[in-house]
């Protein structure tokens, strides 16, 4: 008669009445396939009630099968977030342990382990007696268990008694992850049961290992601080550190961008390097022209290491100028002419520019020697939003860009014959990839003019007519392209970057462009690590599963995920993504303190580590899952914005005494509906529209709040932080209330379309942008108009006349 685990598995003593035990003889040896099948059937039969069956095999072995109702558990939380499960069905693993100890010891060990796995939530462990939590500050010996009603994702079944045969706690483990500690005839056992749909087998394995290590410390290092308990031993730490570096760095093929360029120019001098409408330049012409400009820059006083601004639209001239600056030994600082003058002035001042190249500037045509640069020389400085309230310049040396190309050239077969688009603002570092990715591999760079980049049909036409093969896009821009017919394109490689990708949008793309003909790669990257860090080829299976993986690090780059105290966390556990290796920038320009905060010595290898402020976790196979920003830096439609920066601009307004900004999505599943709402407390009565207008003069478009609401005070939480939940939803922009039909049939039809798409009532003179409109909505309105058989209006037209009245007259005019 086996010992039953009284009160452990089963809720009440009545349930463990031995009369309920079924003894069955199995006419086969315990190791045979027939026995296996017998056990499996026993387990797969639904348990309407608790059920225990003792299987007796031919060879004298026995198995005790305990099948338990699922409801036996105390309230069970959904599976743990770090579980990474994607299989299905119940799985279990069994480990020998040194001693069973007591239940309290295991509960404390579980709570401590869980806290490390998920520091954001208070750990709860379920038992058949109810769930427990604990305050985990202070030393181990001081931890006191506290009963709680909170649901538990992890449960403990503890049994001091010996259990014979195979111990199967239950059909469906009562908790998503069930830990059982018991004794069988071979000694003390630690058993983990979990459904593979919730917890991957690799994660379960490491969890068991970590739990054992923590348990040992709970028993032996009672005076240690809980915060100092270790999850991993030294060997494991080294193994996890290696996990984020799947490939060794390639050998550099050049030292500077212009040297690499010249090598390409020598091998394919007559190929076209850049196309801008009817304007085009061959590699030879680009090389020669940039030489001339480089010499005049030198003659103009530009010296090695100087910084030169480039305030030009995307064009052949931009490319000539940037290359010339590099050849002159200087660093180019892109300044988007579309940004407000204030922002450009700030950049010019902060970067200490020697010179800003604008379309008007005339450089002296003089002979002069070229400059001197090597791999460590800064190639460019790109300004990104800073948490200090003002943008900061990221200094990126030549060798980083060379390393980026060396890491990708072979894998993505980047080569002459490819046609690349240059779609993104030169002040956004995705353009570094577009420009130099193309020109250092012999491709042809097609400039996408600003107006075309905002109009999906026009952009599609350009992709078609130029036979573009390599397309780099933010997912938001790509979603616009998907909204128009995109069947007939020559694109063979799509590279995503700049914001998180919802892989599901790709199903429609794959239907037109199968993976065998067009490879789709999602890259995660940061300006401070030279455009990209990881790459994941996305397949239909990923799209169907809505995968969040951004892939393993590029060869030469490596990743660590660290907790708040800078310790490496195990796979599956979320922490700050830190990036080391070939892409790490030289730092922030003239911001030593900030540089020292974000760029730290790499604890495992020579070199520097960049702390991204992004939340992520490594998968057991070394791929990274990107989970968003840690602080409140956010992205809207591909643009990185720092809410603090917007807030500080609002606060600079003399009429404002307090301000806060939040990002909201009207429809949580729809990135297009994201908008920034500003809230201010006014010193004197003022029109919030004027406050918004002032902010719009300073901030780039994508950072201007859609609404500003005046409040008498900002709601705070008990901790004194602004309580976002209690900020009221902004009132829609006031409009002339006149919902009666205008009598103009076309205008009424348009009003209906607008209000359906925008989700707000629309009047004939309401401003599209004030109603929360943006380019994605504009595309949807276009589609809805097409569907109703109305002539389509070019986006430009909508931007020019952003009211129903304006669009109606444009429709009539067409």
């Amino acid at each position: 008669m086996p010992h039953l685990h009284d009160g452990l598995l089963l809720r009440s003593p009545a349930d463990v009445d031995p009369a309920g035990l079924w003894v069955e003889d199995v006419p086969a040896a315990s190791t045979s396939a027939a026995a296996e099948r017998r056990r499996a059937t026993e387990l797969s039969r639904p348990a309407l009630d608790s059920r225990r069956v003792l299987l007796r095999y031919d060879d004298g072995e026995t198995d005790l099968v305990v099948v338990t109702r699922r409801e036996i558990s105390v309230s069970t939380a959904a599976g743990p977030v770090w579980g990474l499960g994607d299989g299905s069905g119940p799985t279990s693993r069994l480990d020998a342990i040194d001693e069973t100890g007591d239940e309290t010891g295991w509960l404390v060990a579980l709570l401590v382990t869980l806290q490390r796995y998920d520091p954001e939530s208070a750990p709860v462990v379920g038992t058949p007696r109810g769930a427990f939590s604990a305050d985990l500050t202070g030393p181990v010996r001081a931890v006191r268990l506290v009963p709680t009603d909170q649901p538990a994702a992890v449960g403990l079944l503890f049994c001091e008694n010996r259990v014979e045969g195979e111990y199967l706690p239950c059909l469906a483990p009562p908790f998503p992850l069930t830990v059982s500690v018991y004794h069988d005839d071979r000694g003390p056992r630690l058993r983990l049961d979990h459904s593979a749909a919730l917890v991957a087998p690799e994660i379960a394995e490491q969890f068991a290992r970590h739990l054992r290590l923590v348990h040992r410390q709970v028993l032996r290092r009672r005076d240690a601080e809980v915060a100092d308990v270790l999850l991993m031993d030294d060997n494991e730490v080294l193994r996890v550190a290696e996990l984020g570096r799947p490939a060794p760095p390639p050998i550099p093929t050049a030292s500077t961008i212009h040297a690499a360029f010249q090598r390409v120019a020598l091998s394919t001098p007559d190929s076209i390097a850049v196309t801008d409408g009817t304007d085009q330049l061959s590699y030879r012409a680009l090389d020669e022209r940039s030489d001339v400009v480089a010499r005049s820059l030198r003659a103009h006083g530009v010296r090695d290491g100087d910084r030169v601004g480039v305030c030009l639209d995307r064009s052949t001239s931009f490319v000539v100028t940037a290359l010339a600056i590099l050849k002159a030994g200087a660093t180019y600082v892109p300044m988007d002419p579309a940004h407000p003058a204030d922002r450009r002035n700030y950049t010019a001042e902060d970067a200490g520019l020697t010179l800003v190249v604008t379309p008007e500037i005339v450089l002296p045509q003089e002979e002069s020697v070229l400059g001197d640069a090597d791999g460590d020389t800064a190639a460019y400085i790109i300004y990104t939003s800073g948490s200090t309230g003002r943008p900061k310049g990221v200094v990126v040396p030549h060798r980083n860009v060379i390393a980026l190309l060396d890491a990708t050239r072979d894998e993505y077969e980047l080569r002459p014959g490819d046609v690349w688009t240059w779609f993104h603002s030169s002040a956004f570092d995705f353009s570094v990839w577009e420009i130099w990715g193309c020109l250092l591999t012999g491709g042809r760079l097609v400039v996408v003019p600003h107006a075309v980049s905002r109009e999906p049909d026009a952009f599609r036409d350009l992709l078609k007519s130029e036979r573009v093969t390599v397309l780099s896009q933010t997912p938001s821009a790509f979603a616009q392209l998907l909204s128009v017919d995109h069947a007939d394109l020559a694109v063979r490689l799509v590279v995503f970057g700049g914001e998180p990708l919802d892989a599901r949008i790709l199903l429609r793309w794959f239907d037109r462009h199968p993976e065998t003909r067009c490879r789709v790669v999602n890259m995660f990257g940061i300006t401070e690590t030279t455009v990209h860090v990881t790459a994941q080829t996305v397949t239909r299976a990923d799209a169907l599963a809505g995968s969040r993986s951004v892939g393993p690090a590029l060869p030469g780059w490596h990743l660590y995920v660290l907790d708040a105290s800078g310790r490496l966390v195990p796979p599956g556990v979320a922490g700050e993504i830190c990036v080391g290796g070939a892409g790490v920038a030289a730092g922030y320009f003239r911001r030593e303190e900030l540089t020292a905060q974000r760029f730290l010595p790499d604890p495992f290898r020579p070199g520097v580590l960049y702390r991204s402020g992004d939340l992520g976790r490594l998968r057991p196979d070394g791929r990274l899952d990107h989970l968003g920003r840690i602080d409140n830096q956010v992205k809207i439609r591909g643009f990185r914005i720092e809410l603090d920066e917007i807030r500080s601009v609002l606060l600079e307004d003399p009429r404002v005494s307090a301000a806060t900004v939040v990002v909201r999505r009207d429809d949580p599943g729809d990135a297009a509906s994201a908008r920034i709402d500003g809230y201010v407390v006014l010193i004197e009565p003022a029109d919030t529209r004027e406050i918004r207008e002032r902010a719009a003069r300073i901030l780039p478009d994508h950072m201007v709040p859609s609404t500003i609401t005046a409040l008498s005070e900002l709601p705070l939480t008990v901790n004194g932080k602004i309580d976002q939940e209690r900020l009221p939803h902004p009132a829609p922009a006031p409009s002339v209330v006149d919902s009666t039909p205008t009598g103009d049939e076309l205008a009424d039809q348009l009003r209906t379309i607008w209000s359906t798409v925008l989700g707000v009532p629309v009047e004939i003179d309401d401003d599209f942008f004030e109603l929360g409109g943006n380019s994605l909505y504009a595309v949807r309105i276009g589609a809805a108009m097409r569907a109703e058989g109305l002539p389509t209006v070019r986006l430009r037209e909508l931007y020019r006349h952003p009211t129903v009245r304006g669009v109606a007259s444009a429709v009539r005019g067409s």
Partner: protein
Amino acid sequence: MRLTGKVVLVTGAARGLGRAIAVRCAQEGADLVLSDVCADVGGVPYPLGSRSQLDHTAKLCRHEGSAVLVEETDVRSGESVRRMVASAIDRFGQIDVVVNNAGIAAPSGRPVHGITEDEWSLMIDVDLTGAWRVMREVAEGMCERRRGSIINVASTAGLVGYRHFAGYVAAKHGIVGLTKAAALDYAPMKVRVNAVCPGSVRDVPEFEGAMLAEIARALEVPVHEHEKTFVEAQPMNALIEPDDVAAAVVYLASDDAKQVTGSMLTVDGGFSAR
């Protein structure tokens, strides 16, 4: 593993029932020839299976350990079907099982007199003649080898009528007739011909099925309402899962069904028993 060593050809395998059938056959140990039109067909008011979807089905089957040949085939073209069968013989040397699954549900949604000549022809061409074309190409080889199982995916629409679906109903009744006649033709050669008649099948996201939604659209009713109507109409009070149909196909394909030919196996939750 009930299909070990058998080569199964599935048409319309990009998604939906075709994908479910292919994966189930792979799990049963079969090697597979997977085909689909991989293009939109003029006159069909919804997108058909794509190459990427077909490749994904193939990947799922390879995952189960099967050898898979992928073919882009339009069952409206005799030439295209001939090429598919020739490549299959080239690759595997034999075809043991054919599942005629490719089909369209619309253009539909109108009474008999509202159907145009082109719409009628298109429906019959894909849903009835398509199956005949494939049978014509494979039958001889099967007869020579004295073995083979042909499974036509018909529908409850092959047994009863549905309002405003005359073309589809006629084609599916046609398939049922073709199945019976062919069963008699080939019985002496030990080649079996059967039909499965699924009821209303749920569009399962992982299989990317689209038929239920498209039928609802043809009838201009919201999908959930349409689903509800069918759940109520099917005595088991549930929609059919693609896997239920796949299991029936596996049975007819396997040697377990060696005396079964000329039969209509309904998988309709009791719908046609009323």
